[in-house]
C-alpha cells in the first residue's frame, strides 16, 4: 500500500470534488454577449482548432511512416523513433481533445483516437485477441474490433505493456507489427478526415449560435475530467480513496502528466484567447485577467512535475508537487467552470451534459 502524506492530503481533500454544477445564480447574473462578439469568438476558435487538427494530422502522418519503417527494418534505434512519434502525435491530440462537437463527435471519432477510461482493460483484451488470431491484422480488422483497438492507447499498449514486451509477441513480432501499423494507419486516416471535415464544417460552425456555448462546454467538460478523473481519482482523492496509476491516462507509458500539460497548453492557446474576449465583452475583464494568470501559474508546474505517475504517487515530496498542481488546476476549474460560466450564462447541466 502506498504511504499517504496525511498532512498534505487533508487540505486538498476538503476541496470540493463533487459535481461542478452551480445552483440558481446562473440566470440572475448572466450577461448577454452580442451575436457579433460570439461570432468573432467562433471565428477565432475555428482557426485555432484548424491549426490544432493540422498539427495532429502531420504528427499522425509521421507516426505511421516511422511505424512502417520500423516494422520493415526493425532496429533498436527506430523503435525509439516510433515511441517518440507516438508521443508527439498523442500530445497533439491532447491539445485538441476538448473539441467534443462537429467532426470529432460524429462517428465516435474522439473515442476512436482515445478510448478512455478503460476500467475493464478492453485495450489489453482486444490486443490479446487480435495478436492471437490466425488471420492477418489489417486496418479493416482493427475497424471491426471497435474503438478500444483503434487509437493512441492501443499503440501505447504495444510499445509499453510489460507483459507484451516480455512475450513472444513483443515488437517487432510480425503480428504485433501488423497491428501497430494497422492502428497507425487508422489514426492517420482519422486525422486526415478530421481536417477535411473541419473545413466543410466551417460555415455551420460560424453560422450556428449554439456552437458558442458548445465550445465553452467542451472546455468546461475537459477541465472537470482533468481535475476529477485524470488527477483526483489516481491521487486517491475520490472514490476508493486509494492512490492508483490505473485510473490515469497513459499510465503504461508514464506520460500521464505530459498529457495533462498538453491539454492545458491546448486550452490556453486555442480556447482561452476568444474566451477572454467574450468575458471582457460581458464585463468580466478582471476575471479574464485572473484566468489568464491562473493558466500561467498552473503551467509553471511543468516540466518539473512531468514524471511518471507511479513515481509521483509513491514518493512523498513528489506527491506534494502533484498536490500543488492539483490545487492550481482546481482553482482554474473554479474560475472557468463556476465564475466565468455564470458570467456568460453557460450552464453545464445535470441533464443537458449527460442525458438519456
Amino acid at each position: 500500500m502506498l504511504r499517504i502524506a496525511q498532512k498534505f492530503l487533508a487540505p486538498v481533500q476538503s476541496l470540493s470534488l463533487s459535481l461542478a454544477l452551480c445552483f440558481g445564480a446562473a440566470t440572475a447574473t448572466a450577461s448577454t454577449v452580442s451575436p457579433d462578439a460570439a461570432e468573432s469568438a467562433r471565428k477565432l476558435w475555428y482557426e485555432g482548432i484548424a491549426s490544432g487538427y493540422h498539427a495532429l494530422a502531420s504528427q499522425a502522418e509521421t507516426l505511421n511512416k516511422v511505424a512502417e519503417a520500423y516494422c520493415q527494418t526493425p532496429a533498436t534505434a527506430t523503435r525509439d523513433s516510433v515511441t517518440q512519434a507516438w508521443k508527439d502525435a498523442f500530445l497533439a491530440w491532447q491539445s485538441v481533445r476538448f473539441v467534443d462537437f462537429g467532426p470529432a463527435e460524429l462517428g465516435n471519432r474522439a473515442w476512436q483516437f482515445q478510448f478512455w477510461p478503460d476500467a475493464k482493460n478492453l485495450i489489453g483484451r482486444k490486443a490479446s485477441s487480435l495478436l492471437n488470431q490466425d488471420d492477418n491484422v489489417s486496418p479493416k480488422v482493427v475497424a471491426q474490433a471497435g474503438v478500444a483497438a483503434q487509437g493512441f492507447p492501443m499503440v501505447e499498449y504495444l510499445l509499453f505493456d510489460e507483459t507484451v514486451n516480455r512475450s513472444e509477441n513483443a515488437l517487432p513480432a510480425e503480428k504485433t507489427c501488423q497491428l501497430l501499423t494497422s492502428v497507425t494507419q487508422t489514426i492517420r486516416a482519422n486525422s486526415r478526415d478530421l481536417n477535411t471535415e473541419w473545413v466543410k464544417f466551417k460555415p455551420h460552425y460560424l453560422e450556428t449560435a449554439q456552437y458558442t456555448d458548445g465550445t465553452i462546454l467542451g472546455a468546461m467538460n475537459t477541465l472537470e475530467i482533468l481535475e476529477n478523473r485524470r488527477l483526483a481519482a489516481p491521487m486517491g482523492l475520490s472514490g476508493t480513496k486509494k492512490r492508483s496509476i490505473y485510473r490515469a491516462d497513459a499510465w503504461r507509458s508514464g506520460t500521464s502528466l505530459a498529457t495533462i500539460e498538453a491539454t492545458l497548453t491546448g486550452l490556453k492557446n486555442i480556447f482561452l484567447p476568444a474566451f477572454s474576449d467574450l468575458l471582457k465583452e460581458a464585463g468580466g475583464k478582471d476575471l479574464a485577467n485572473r484566468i489568464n494568470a491562473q493558466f500561467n501559474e498552473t503551467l509553471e508546474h511543468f516540466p518539473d512535475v512531468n514524471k511518471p505517475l507511479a513515481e509521483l504517487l509513491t514518493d512523498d515530496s513528489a506527491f506534494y508537487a502533484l498536490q500543488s498542481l492539483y490545487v492550481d488546476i482546481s482553482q482554474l476549474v473554479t474560475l472557468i467552470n463556476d465564475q466565468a460560466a455564470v458570467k456568460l450564462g453557460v450552464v453545464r447541466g445535470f441533464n443537458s451534459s449527460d442525458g438519456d
Partner: protein
Amino acid sequence: MISFNRRTLFKASLAASAVATLSGCSLLRGTTQSGPGQLAGAVGLPDGTFAINAIDLQGRQLWQAPVESRCHSGCTRPSSNELLFVERRPGWSFYVFNIHTGERLHHIKAEGGEHFVGHGIFSPGGDYLYVPASRYEQGEGIVAVYDSQQNYKRVKTLELKGIGPHQLVMHPDGQTLIVALGGILTHPDYDRIKLNLDTMKPALILMDRNSGEILARFAPSHHQLSCRHVDVSPGGNIYAAYQYQGPRYETRPLVARYRGGQYEEIDFGHEVLAELGNYIASVVAHPENDLVALASPIGGTALIFEGSSGRIVSKTRIKDCAGAEALPGGDFLISSGQGELIHLSAHRSPVELARMPLHWDHHLVL
C-alpha cells in the same frame, strides 16, 4: 414492413375511449392511490450522492430516500402504496419505496447479462411490472416482466426485436404496451458510446403485454431520430419524442403523434426545433385536456402544444429543464437540473414554485 394487427388496435382504441368516459375527472396517473397528490423524481445531491425526492403538488418537500446510484424515472404501482424507481442506463437495479414515507421496500437487481434503461410501468391492477431492458452482449431490446405479488420475481421476457428500448407506457386499454425504441446500441463496457449511429432502426412499438405480440411498429422519418420518450392520452392518442443524433446545425421533427390509425410527425419549424436542441427529455400528454408538454435540457426550453393541431400555446426558457408532469386543473409542472420546479400553463406566465439545492433528473413521476 412490420406486422400491424389493425383489428387489435381498433379494439384497443375503442376500449380506450370507454375508459376515458368512465373514469370521469380523476384521470391523473396515481391520484387515486398516491394520497393527496404528490410527485417524485430521481435527484442528484450537491455532495455527489443520489436520492429519490418526493414533493407535494405545490412543490413542498415531503421525503427524500437515498439510493446507491443515479436513478432516472419510475412509476407508481396502482392499488398500492408503492413507488418504483429504476437506475439510469446502464441500470443494474430498481427500487421500490413506500410512497408515503420513502421507506425502501425492495431493491431488485437486474438478471445477469441484462441492464435496465431507467423506466418501467405497471399493469392496471398493479400485479405485473414491465421494465425495458437490454441484453447487452447480444444488443437485444426486451421488456422484462416482474410479478409484484411475488416480491418482484422475474416471470417473463418480451422480445422487442430491436435495439435500445427506453420509455414505455401503458395504453388506456390496459392491454397494450407502448414502447419507445431508441435504436441506439450501447454496451456497459464502452461507457455510453453510441455504437451503431449509421445503422440505427428506431421505432415506436405497440405490444400485447400478455402474448408479447408486436401489434404495430412505426419508424421515424430519419434513421437517426432516436425515439426515446412516449406518452398516451386517455383517449389513446400517442405522442412520441425523439432525440436527433445528427449534427447540431440540422433540425428534424422531434415529436410524432399516433391517432386514428395514423402515425405522423409534427414539425414545429426550424426556429423552435433549434430551441429544443435536437433533444427532448420528457413528453407528457395532459389527461384532462388536449395539451402536451415537452422539456429539453439541451435547448433549455419547455413548451406546451395542442395535441390535435400541433400548435404551440406556451414556450419558456428554463435552463437544464427535463422533467414534466400534468397537474390537476390542466397545467404542467416542469423540473430542472438546477433544482427548479416551474408551474407551466397554457394561459398564464410560468411561475417558479420552488428552487431546491438538488438536481432533478429527467423525469417526474406522479
